């Protein structure tokens, strides 16, 4: 078991591309930590740098307090599960699981027994003599996990562990992985581009964009208080509504196309008159009504998408489209007149100039151990 500490960690490639830019991050012992971001944001490079497959160009990396910045991958006591599992096709399941033990010179009988035991724990007992080519994707993934577990490393690294599974299996594997990690208590870092996966599995997560960490926090913090427009856009299964608005007289209202809306609770007293802002409201936290109400935007219902127990309503108001989630059975008719109202307690305000969250409670928004990048949320509040 170990903590992972990065200090000013930088990885620049020969061509001048900086994949990871001066990162400070501490992952606590036993934590399940997600690195989330769009492709090309440096999350996989960061994971590979922790594994030692890439050499950091600057900064240092500590595992359990030990500086491993220049240690070769085999000397770091980490195990990695690759996106394509990287099982050895010419070895059977037992040999695959036992491979790391074989390198550590564990006697043959002992490593067979250990592989058997680990495999049994993951429901692989029947498959121990098979080759990876004879296994389904889900089984291959469990073999890859077993190989990592049998080795008893201090840290697990998962690179997009669920991306090669089909949708239903992915949900099962998500629950399975989370339980497994809790049972083993091994510090785990996993990389994903799927925000739902990160929200569902992680204890804490970091949202990355072009080599920088934009926000660190628990899934709930990141979901409820994205620190900037990028994170706000990226997190959530339906994208957050970002409605351009101008601050009204005395900073006490937001004007959207001549309709005056109340300032969300989180931004009260923080806005100056005539400032250009974006009013952020998740569709889940946006109400739709068929009758006029104070501070509601008037529009017409353009699209209805059935999501099962809920429906996603797109309301066109002027040249804006605002989306809202309503319970099933309460959908307005297409073409009907409707009023949308962001919930005041949950709506957020972002400044247009720098894209940062306007907040009066800085302590909540910046997660513990936040990088300077993410810490810029603090700057906003103190401004």
């Amino acid at each position, binding site marked *: 078991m170990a903590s992972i500490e990065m200090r000013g960690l930088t990885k620049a490639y020969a061509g001048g591309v900086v994949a990871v830019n001066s990162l400070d991050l501490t992952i606590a012992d036993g934590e399940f930590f997600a690195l989330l971001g769009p492709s090309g944001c440096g999350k996989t490079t960061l994971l590979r740098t922790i594994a030692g*497959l890439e050499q950091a160009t600057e900064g240092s990396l500590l595992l359990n307090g030990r500086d491993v910045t220049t240690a070769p991958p085999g000397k770091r006591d980490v195990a990695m599960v690759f996106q*394509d599992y990287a099982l*050895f096709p010419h070895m059977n399941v037992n040999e695959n699981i036992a491979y790391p033990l074989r390198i550590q010179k564990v006697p043959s009988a002992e490593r067979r027994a250990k592989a058997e035991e680990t495999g049994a724990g993951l429901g692989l007992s029947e498959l121990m003599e098979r080759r990876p080519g004879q296994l389904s994707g889900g089984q291959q993934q469990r073999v890859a996990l077993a190989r990592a577990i049998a080795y008893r490393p201090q840290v697990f690294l998962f690179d997009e562990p669920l991306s090669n599974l089909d949708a239903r299996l992915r949900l099962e594997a998500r629950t399975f992985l989370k339980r497994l990690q809790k049972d083993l208590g091994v510090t785990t870092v996993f990389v994903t581009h799927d925000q739902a996966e990160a929200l569902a599995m992680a204890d804490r997560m970091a949202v990355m964009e072009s080599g920088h960490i934009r926000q660190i926090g628990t899934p709930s913090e990141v979901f409820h208080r994205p620190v900037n427009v990028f994170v706000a856009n990226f997190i959530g299964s339906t994208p957050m509504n970002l409605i351009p608005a101008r601050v009204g007289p005395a900073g006490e209202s937001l004007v959207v196309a001549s309709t005056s809306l109340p300032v969300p609770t989180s931004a009260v007293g923080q806005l100056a008159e005539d400032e250009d802002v974006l009013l952020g409201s998740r569709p889940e936290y946006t109400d739709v009504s068929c009758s006029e109400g104070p501070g509601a935007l008037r529009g017409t219902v353009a699209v209805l998408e059935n999501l099962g127990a809920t429906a996603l309503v797109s309301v066109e108001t002027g040249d804006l489209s605002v989306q809202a989630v309503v319970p099933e059975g309460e959908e307005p008719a297409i073409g009907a007149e409707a009023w949308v109202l962001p919930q005041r307690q949950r709506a957020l305000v972002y400044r247009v100039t720098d894209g940062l969250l306007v907040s009066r409670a800085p302590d909540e928004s910046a997660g513990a151990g936040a990088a300077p990048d993410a810490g810029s949320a603090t700057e906003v509040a103190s401004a």
Partner: protein
Amino acid sequence: MTTADLSRVHDVARSAPRPDNSPGQSQKPARDRVAPIAIGLLLWGYAAVALGPLLLMLVGSLRESRDIFDDPLGLPTSLDVSNYRTVWADASFSTFFLNSVIVTVSAVALGTVVSLLAAYPLGRYQFRGAGLLSAYFIAGMMLPIRLGIVPIFYLLASLGLVDSRFGLVLVYAASGIPFSVFVLSAFYRGLPAELEEAARIDGASEFRIFRTVMLPLVRPAIATVVLFQLVPLWNDFFFPLVLLRSTEKATIPIGLTQFFGQFQTDWAVLFAGLVVATVPLVLLFLVATKQIIAGLTAGMGK
């Protein structure tokens, strides 16, 4: 190794079995149904041209020379294996056969081991001069080794290796390396990087990664390069003729020449000798064809 070898590679690749598209065949227009038949005829025709002489050789080896002159394409009157007895015992083919086996097997083994090791860094590592080194090996394929016979002869002479089977083994091993390195490095390159990285994270050393992960995965390619080295070496007449002198060191192709007299040739015995020379190769192809096709299609395709 020359361009001729490369074209042979393509021939084998082309004759690899194609997946037949039987489902829904009946609904296809007539033209699509004729095409497979035409292709089949063409291939069978080619096979007949290739197999005809071999059959003639086999039949001839069971007849008498006088018989063959009377009716060159006739069938044997009785099953007569005396030609084989003559070849094996009287013409000391047992010695030639053993020499051929020793020289070819050692040369191929040496050439393959060297190529496996040389191709590995070329295929898997990035380092300064890798391109130059690859070009150096490929240059060996461009230049027919027989053109270098004079310097090779002087080199071996100064090493005291003329009229030595060991000297022949060294020349043979070297002649096969460029092509083998070319095929193997392409094959190594095609193996996924994750396998190597997974082993590296587990703490495996570079040599261990090579031996336990990479080597087993290039097995089809090994079969390919072994065969492509072995066939020309087994049949080679030129180098033993120039580099060997003693009869007791001669290989089969040299041994066969004793049947070509200045005034007359004992065709029946010659055919028997040729059969003896051909049988090991036929057996080898029968055993290894599947591996070769896998090696060629997987290695060259990527």
